[in-house]
């Protein structure tokens, strides 16, 4: 009996310890929400697959939402609330993204939560939106969502701070890269060769007589430090929570539900 109580207590303790880190992911929730009826069944199925794949690859939730109107709310508030109230997210920080397209307002918004805030910077949000714009202009909502999910996955994969530009720029040959490929090795080999040449001649005159100073003979007989003046300069600080330049994660705000979100959007 004692042994049963001990095992039961141990299981309870383990559950208690593991509870905060357990995934909050609820697989029964809909990840493709179409309140307009504009998405075909085929598109919905395809988007579900994309969402599932995104979750599998990045351990983050992925929700797409197509609405006619946002009921007077801003796109940011609508997307954040939909994510929070829908109970989406993975892990203790409810990590995930929600891509909202409001057809009536012709507005798109990407809301990030938890680890996704740091994983996708403000500049990267803009890049994702850039990639969606062509399909949005064509009112091809399904394609826009797929491009958004695909681009968000790539942004999470790339290291933070890799700069502004599309993902494919990594393999693009630019004049800067050619210059780096030519100049950097030339500078390095020039420095190494200069050091090697320097070591071929050890004739160096002596500037001081430190080798001949009588040990312990140095004595300071006078010292005076006079304060002359002081000046203070001040420079304005950069915005503290901005992702800035694609590095260090995105900026964040708090939703009406008290949850931190990142993200960004635009009209199309």
């Amino acid at each position: 009996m004692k042994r049963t109580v001990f095992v039961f207590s141990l299981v309870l303790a383990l559950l208690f310890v593991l509870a905060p880190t357990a995934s909050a992911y609820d697989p029964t929730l809909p990840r493709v929400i179409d309140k307009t009826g504009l998405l075909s069944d085929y598109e919905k199925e395809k988007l579900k697959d994309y969402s599932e794949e995104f979750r599998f690859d990045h351990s983050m939730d992925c929700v797409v939402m197509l609405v006619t109107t946002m009921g007077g709310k801003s796109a940011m508030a609508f997307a954040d609330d939909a994510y929070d109230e829908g109970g989406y997210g993975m892990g203790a920080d409810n990590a995930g993204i929600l891509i909202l397209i409001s057809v009536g307002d012709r507005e798109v918004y990407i809301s990030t939560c938890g680890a996704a805030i740091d994983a996708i910077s403000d500049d990267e949000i803009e890049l994702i939106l850039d990639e969606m714009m062509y399909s949005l202009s064509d009112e091809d909502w399904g394609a826009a969502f797929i491009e958004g999910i695909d681009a968000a996955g790539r942004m999470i994969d790339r290291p933070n701070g890799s700069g502004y530009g599309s993902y494919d720029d990594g393999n693009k040959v630019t004049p800067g890269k050619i210059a780096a490929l030519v100049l950097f090795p030339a500078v390095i080999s020039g420095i190494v060769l200069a050091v090697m040449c320097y070591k071929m001649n050890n004739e160096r005159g002596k500037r001081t007589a430190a080798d001949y100073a009588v040990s312990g003979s140095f004595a300071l007989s006078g010292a005076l430090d006079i304060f002359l003046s002081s000046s203070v300069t001040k420079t304005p600080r950069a915005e503290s929570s901005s992702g800035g330049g694609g590095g260090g994660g995105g900026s964040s705000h708090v939703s009406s539900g008290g949850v931190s979100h990142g993200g960004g959007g635009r009209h199309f």
Partner: protein
Amino acid sequence: MEDIRNHKCPGCGSPLRFDAGAQSLVCDACGSHFDISTVEQYDEAADGIDGGDTSSWETYGGVPWEDGVAVHVCPSCGAEIVTDPTTAVTKCPYCDNVTVIEGNLSGVLRPDCVIPFSVTAEDARRLMAEYCRNKPLLPKNFINELHIEETQGLYIPFWLFDCRADGRATYLATKVRHWSDRKYDYTETRRFRVYRRGGMAFSKIPADGSRKADDTMMESIEPYDYRGMKEFGTGYLSGFVADKYDVGADESKARADARVKNSIEAALLTTVIGYSSVIPTGSSVKITDGTVRYAMLPVWLLHYTYRGERFTYAINGQTGRVVGKLPISRGRAAAWFAGIYAAAAALVALIMFLL
């Protein structure tokens, strides 16, 4: 209000004015305020600091060299070589000229002290070979063609200077502090006039007394260990040759003065601590109690002509330190450059690929 114009601002050097209201001295040029006692203290300390350096050395008298020694004169470079009568000199140690004639000894002072050779001719050859080792740019055939068996042991005349040096120096220093609040980053810069005074003693600063010996090369083989110094005797010349000095002590002391001045300035600078930046603005050094000794210090000299260029190497005859410029193979230098370039380019390409 009374004007006092006989004090100068420690910050900018402009005349200071007495401000009766504040009971302090004010600089109209830079706006600084000082206590009268502080300025008086500074004036007393820095008085004459830019008036130049002074040095006081004894005049070296010396004792004429009357022992039984032989003098040889090189008709090529004019070097006058002194040996004991039994040592035959066939080659000039400075220019490698093979014709050396016997001459007359005149105006030669007997050295006060000598450091005997500790490094043998065999050691010198080994040290030279070691010096050429692990030099990837050295022409491959250089060491094979090096006729190091012709190494010549030579006592070179040195003047050894003992002195005491007292120095004063002024500096402009700053202390910089950073802090921030929600809106701004702040930087506070505080400027100070710093004054230091101190002294130290020096013993046996060497300066070679031979015009033919390259000064930079002779400084490069320093230091000698003076614990091995002996009172001079012609017996130490046996098997070696000695050069007759042709640069007097008075002429050499300028080099010793410069080294002493640099040393005392460096020592004073180490005491200016706790500042973000320190800029020396003036100094003066007074050298006193200067005494001079005449010494013979051992050097192995080696000459080598490689592809028309003449190379000279000196080996400290006591410590074995080898000094000299080695030839550089252009082919090897180009190969190393190309190899490093290729490796660095590959690394850059790999980093670009990964990013």
